[in-house]
């Protein structure tokens, strides 16, 4: 309930700011895909927070006595954030779902994301546990009862991903690295925004995250939805007020996407889509506008590699943005 009100308040605050901004400039800038993605609001964690502290997804303030040396990550996105911040050598436990960066293979596994072993975690004597959406709540409660500092991450939007990188950076004593990473991502976002003009065509994009019916995708207010709009596309599911909606074939046929991103391992994308009943009439399949990412996980994990997703997707949707002008 608390987080709902918080989101509600933030939403109104942003809306108020946006309205105020509109009145000043007269017209809203067409190149702003999402009002919450203003460059000033990202990167820096609350400046008045002391070192080794941060406010997590549940609204709890975590204050660590010193720089954490034994970190356990309970999800790939948190692992990627910690690794990008330069804390790879301080990670002492990860889940079986972790595969990036490749060196995580050498780190002790504490179980799957949905069933990590409490005993294993405790026996590794962590001084910080990074929890993600999907971890069992009772595990979190038990860890907290044992006075293990648990920091919960559940970033929904690209902006929240950037904020969380900043928060984790402050928490584990790498604020400069966090600043660097978030600025880097922000630069990519700003670059894409600068390329976008009022005349830019916005192809309809469908990111498929599950290869069988019902097909899953990103709904409104998710980082996947943000990725599409920032890369200059229009999410066919952006009207669905549900983070990971299951789509039926008729919905996808009706929306008729111009481009399809298959965010999973697939052999022959064109063939597999053509073999689906009715799909041969979809624009993306007719024009063979199907993107099979180099690493599908960059589209699925709210971590620092969203930059790669942004660039790959934007290059696919708008190759003209990346041509060096003569």
């Amino acid at each position, binding site marked *: 309930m608390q987080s709902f009100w918080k989101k509600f308040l933030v939403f109104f605050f942003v809306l108020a700011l946006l309205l105020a901004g509109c009145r000043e400039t007269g017209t809203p800038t067409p190149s702003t895909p999402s009002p919450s993605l203003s460059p000033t609001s990202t990167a820096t964690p609350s400046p008045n927070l002391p070192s080794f502290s941060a406010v997590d997804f549940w609204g709890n303030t975590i204050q660590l006595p010193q720089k954490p040396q034994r970190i356990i990550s309970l999800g790939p996105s948190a692992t990627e954030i910690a690794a990008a911040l330069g804390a790879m050598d301080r990670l002492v436990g990860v889940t079986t779902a972790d595969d990036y960066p490749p060196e995580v293979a050498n780190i002790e596994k504490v179980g799957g994301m949905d*069933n990590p072993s409490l005993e294993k975690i405790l*026996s590794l004597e962590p001084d910080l546990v990074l929890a993600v959406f999907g971890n069992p709540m009772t595990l979190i409660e038990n860890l907290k009862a044992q006075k293990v500092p648990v920091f919960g991450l559940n970033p929904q939007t690209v902006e929240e991903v950037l904020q969380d990188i900043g928060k984790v950076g402050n928490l584990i004593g790498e604020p400069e690295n966090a600043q660097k990473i978030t600025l880097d991502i922000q630069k990519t976002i700003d670059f894409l925004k600068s390329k976008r003009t009022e005349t830019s065509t916005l192809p309809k994009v469908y990111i498929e995250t599950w290869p069988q019916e019902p097909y899953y995708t990103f709904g409104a207010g998710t980082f996947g939805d943000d990725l599409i709009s920032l890369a200059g596309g229009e999410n066919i599911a952006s009207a669905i007020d549900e983070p990971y909606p299951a789509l039926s074939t008729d919905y996808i046929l009706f929306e008729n996407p111009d481009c399809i991103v298959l965010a999973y391992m697939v052999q022959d994308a064109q063939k597999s889509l053509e073999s689906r009943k009715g799909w041969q009439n979809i624009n993306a399949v007719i024009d063979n506008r199907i993107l099979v990412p180099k690493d599908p996980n960059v589209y699925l994990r709210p971590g620092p590699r969203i930059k790669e997703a942004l660039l790959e997707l934007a290059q696919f949707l708008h190759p003209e943005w990346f041509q060096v002008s003569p």
Partner: protein
Amino acid sequence: MSWKYILIILVFLCFLLWGLFAGGAPLSYYTVLETLGSPFGLASVPPVYQSIIWEFRIPRMFTAFLTGSALALAGCISQSLFRNPLADPFIVGTSAGANFGVTLALVLNIIYLRPGLLALPWFAFLGAVLVTVCVLLLGRKGGALPVNTLLLAGIAANYFFVSLSSLAATLGRNVLHRSVLWSLEGFAGANWDTFLAVLPLVLIALLALIFLAKPLDLMVLGDESAMGLGLNVGQFKFIFTVIIGLLTGAAVSVSGLIGFVGLVVPHIARMIVGAKHSRLLPFAFLTGGVLLLGADNLARSIIPGFEIPVAVITALMGVPFFLYLLRKE
């Protein structure tokens, strides 16, 4: 007679010992022994080992035992009450009701209040009783309760309340996403709080059953015979329904839906000590507990550091037995 009890208690002790040394944390036998002695000043170990053993491993074993006992007792009573060897809280819909109660409590966000954990089994209890009463009323046919209509009503109730749970979970997903996978967890999250939360329900049921073994024996004879022998059948049906609800609520609220223990254990116990409830109930209590304790030990030790859902293990053990019963019928 008594050697059978000695045997099951011996198995129980062996499983306790096994469980002490099995688990996700790679603690050596010697470390575990040291940790066991540490509260009495016999050895000194890092406090984290003390937590692992004393605050998680031990209460987890007791919780698994208690849950197995509760399911087995609920199965015994169901089979006698419905006079059907295949009746158990799952088939009659009681578990679905308990599950609905828990889902509702989670959606209404009650669990996150501190006393919420203590309230959860009671929500499960209310759901279980609600559904069992519905089934009893739906299955009634001209004052009597024929077995087939009862089981059909149970199946209907099962589907209905499983659907209601999914609906509640879908509508309340914003709250529920904090507790997703709750029903798959088995005993991974168990601690002393969980144990203490379900203990009262099982104790109340046990206390009541001490006085109810005789009426249960009469219920098996059928409504008419029981009435003829002076039993107030309607009243006792209600009492037994409430007891089944208590036991099922306790079990489902801690571990989610665990099948086949309630079905299989009463049969094993009946084979060993006979059908008389004054003997059957205590023996089923022990057997059910020992069985689920063993299943949970397996669940956390097959692959060290990984939790296999305990329901998977009970199903793997129970299904062959279930098929055997079906063939025998």
